[in-house]
């Protein structure tokens, strides 16, 4: 399939954001008429690479990048995304950038409309030109035909099914005559299976006309079915650049997630459990961006249960739904007793705790003292730190008890602060996270949901947070459900790990399972295929 010369060369590209390396010496070529599948986990550096290609402002603002980019052998330096477009790069985004009130035609030729000058042009310039509607339509139809799909040029974007929107975006990119390189970022994420199939066929057609395509997707099957070559990024490194021959899903999956961390294995200590602490049956949660469709699982008493999966697949929706923070339905039983959904106070009163993934938004009272942050939930739910006055007529905050409670956890979790009266916003991310944990520990939950506990905190603090969870589980027998995008973390601390994909549980694995199996589940490959592969 690989024919012709190198269309785009990425040579030794490195990029760091304030010392945090996200791309490290990445080099690969894209040839004419080639489809290149670019795969990697969240945070592997795919998006940053695309930002560099299009010289998005964010790259220049954070100090540029090292290495060079060549198009047809000549090095290019784009000043802005517009230069990249002029040089023949086209990009189809995951989120649609279309104008809903415009028709297909108008969207396809937007800002490149064929125009006829009028007399007013002499005074007001180009803005007063007249659009040539029939020419516009002609061009749109040409682009649509090139795609080989059935799109109505006069339909409003707002009335289209999602699949058509995706095709409109692609048509817009190929209407640009100079477009020779097309980059698609998760183009099939919003499509149904049959729509995705049509899209893949279209891409093959475009490639056969000599356009080079970079196809970014986490659906590995799709990548395997259309790519000529596969490039795998992991933690900013290019780990594999191989023609798509004789490789299977399992290989790609393990390249994608396969990391070995020294010492990680010691933590495995398989335990077995009998009693069930939490039954979840047919749970759905309407959490924007993290929709849970139909999830059923059991959590044993005393275990650490991990929930993993890629961003946006619904793993965060599970704890948020059970704790009543987003509209949810289905059946949840805690120790056999039904948990009323959509009622945070009841969920807490029944003995469940929650450490939110949105630390600054939901987890903390940034403008209040540490005492308030730690004691507040316990005060509201268990009437802790409250003094009864005048024979129970009214209550008063017991500030001394609040301080003591806070001191206890500052010592226990080694929270770095100048005093317990310090405001939460003044602490570092890692210490803020510990405050969130302390808040949840303070209500003495039987079952604790911890959502993304290590997001946005540095490596040292990560370890402390995980250790705190580990000890809390061992010392008090608290059941912990930990949701995280970091598979290594889940594998280092959990007894069992469920992987969520498209709002459903794709499978539950022991932490000792082969990494490729986790990769397969995350990539939307069904269980059976994983077994057969």
């Amino acid at each position, binding site marked *: 399939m690989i024919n012709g010369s190198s269309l785009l060369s990425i040579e030794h590209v490195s990029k760091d954001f304030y010392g945090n390396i996200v791309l490290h010496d990445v080099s690969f070529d894209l040839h004419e008429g080639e489809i290149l599948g670019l795969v990697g986990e969240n945070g592997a550096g795919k998006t940053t690479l695309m930002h560099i290609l299009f010289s998005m402002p964010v790259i220049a603002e954070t100090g540029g990048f090292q290495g060079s980019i060549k198009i047809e052998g000549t090095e290019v330096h784009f000043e802005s995304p517009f230069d990249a477009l002029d040089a023949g790069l086209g990009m189809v985004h995951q989120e649609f950038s279309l104008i809903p009130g415009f028709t297909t035609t108008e969207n396809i030729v937007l800002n490149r409309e064929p125009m006829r000058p009028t007399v007013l042009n002499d005074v007001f310039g180009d803005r007063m030109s007249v659009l040539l509607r029939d020419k516009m339509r002609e061009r749109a139809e040409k682009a649509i035909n090139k795609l080989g799909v059935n799109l109505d040029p006069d339909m409003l974007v707002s009335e289209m099914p999602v699949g058509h929107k995706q095709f409109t975006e692609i048509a817009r990119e190929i209407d640009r005559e100079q477009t020779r390189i097309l980059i698609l970022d998760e183009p099939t994420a919003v499509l149904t299976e049959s729509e995705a199939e049509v899209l893949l066929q279209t891409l093959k057609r475009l490639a056969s006309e000599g356009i080079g395509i970079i196809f970014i997707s986490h659906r590995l099957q799709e990548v395997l079915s259309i790519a000529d070559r596969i490039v795998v990024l992991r933690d900013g490194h290019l780990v594999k650049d191989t023609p798509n021959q004789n490789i299977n899903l399992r290989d790609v999956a393990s390249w994608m997630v396969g990391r070995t961390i020294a010492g990680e294995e010691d933590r495995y200590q398989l335990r077995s459990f009998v009693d069930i602490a939490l039954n979840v049956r047919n749970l759905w949660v309407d959490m924007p961006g993290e929709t849970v469709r139909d999830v059923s699982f059991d959590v044993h008493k005393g275990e650490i249960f991990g929930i993993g999966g890629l961003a946006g697949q619904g793993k965060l929706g599970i704890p948020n739904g059970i704790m009543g923070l987003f509209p949810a339905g289905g059946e949840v039983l805690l120790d056999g007793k039904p948990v009323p959904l959509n009622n945070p106070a009841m969920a*807490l009163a029944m003995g469940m705790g929650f450490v939110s993934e949105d630390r600054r938004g939901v987890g*903390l009272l940034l*403008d209040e003292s540490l005492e308030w942050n730690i004691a507040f*939930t316990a*005060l509201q739910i268990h009437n802790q730190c409250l003094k009864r006055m005048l024979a129970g007529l009214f209550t008063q*905050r017991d500030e001394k008890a609040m301080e003591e409670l806070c001191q206890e956890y500052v010592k226990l979790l080694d929270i770095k602060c100048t005093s317990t009266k310090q405001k939460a916003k003044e602490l570092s991310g890692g210490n803020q996270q510990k405050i969130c944990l302390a808040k949840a520990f303070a209500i003495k939950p039987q079952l604790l949901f911890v959502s993304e506990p290590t997001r946005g905190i540095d490596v040292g603090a990560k370890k402390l947070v995980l250790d705190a969870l580990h000890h809390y589980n061992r010392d008090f027998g608290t059941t912990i459900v930990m949701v995280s995008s970091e598979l290594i973390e889940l594998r280092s601390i959990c007894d069992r790990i469920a992987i969520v994909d498209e709002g459903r549980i794709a499978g539950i694995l022991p932490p000792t399972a082969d990494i490729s199996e986790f990769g397969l589940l995350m990539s939307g490959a069904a269980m059976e295929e994983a077994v057969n592969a």
Partner: protein
Amino acid sequence: MRNIKTFIQDFGWPRIIIFLFLVGLFIMAPFVQVRLDASISDVLNRFGQNAIMVLAMVPMIQSGCGLNFGLALGLVSGLLGATLSLQLELHGMIGFLSAIVLAMPFSILFGWIYGKLLNRVKGEEMTIAMYVGFSFIMFMCIMWLVLPYDNPTMVWGYAGKGLRTTISVENYWLHVLNNFLAIKIGEFFIFPTGLLLFVALFAFFMWVFLRTKTGTAMTAVGSNPDFARASGVDVDKMRTISVIVSTFLGAVGIIVYEQSFGFIQLYTAPNAMVFPAVAAILIGGASINKASMVNVVVGTILFQGLLTMTPSVINSLLHTDMSEVIRIIVSNGMILYALTRKMKVSK
């Protein structure tokens, strides 16, 4: 030096400037033949008159509903209570207290409806509140004419129905608080003990209330509603409670004001009471989601001090009436200043 710097930062430049200006006015007063003792007595009196209306701002600020620009609902409840107590011919302390008790059901009802409304417009509370206040005052302009009051001291003489714009409480409960345990020193200085005690009592109630479980929850709602919800607090309920408490305090505030001022002012008069109360608490150093008793006391003294001293001192100095102009500049300027600082609240 460092201490002075942090003090200035905490206290804020606007407050310091107003404070220095006020001190300047007091220093100038004797030179323009304005008696200092009478002035101080005046300031104390006006502080007592207005403090509870300023205090009414606290619960809504704490619960994150912003400044209560709809305080007029509370004021109208107070006016209803006051007029009803006159209608029932209740005199003295009984009359004053019954006015408060009679105002209570109205303030709870109005506050509840107003709270429900504000829960539907989260983020835009202050704008909506202002229009609720304006339109409710206009609605009451009709009601004051229509309601079947018939006490001759209250209704228009020629028609025998419809309430007058100003009603004297002289024969009912004028100065019941001001004269309670009042200390008179010399010819011009009166210390309004009862009035200040009453204010202190309400400030204490508020302090206690904010430290109860409910009050704590309310403060958390104002600080971060998502946090409060995740901790099992019913955010909308807390907000509604804060609005009801605020409305009730508005009612008490206007009744206290009337017993000291001597008149019940109806129709569009409540319009003139809302902005000074908002400005006072802001001068006191409250932000739009944090307020304390100190803010109330400091703010009311500064604002009312300014209002008392500028007419007497500046007018004697310039021989022209500048007081109203200064009042408007200070109160609206202060509100403007506080609203532009809105962004400084961390989220």
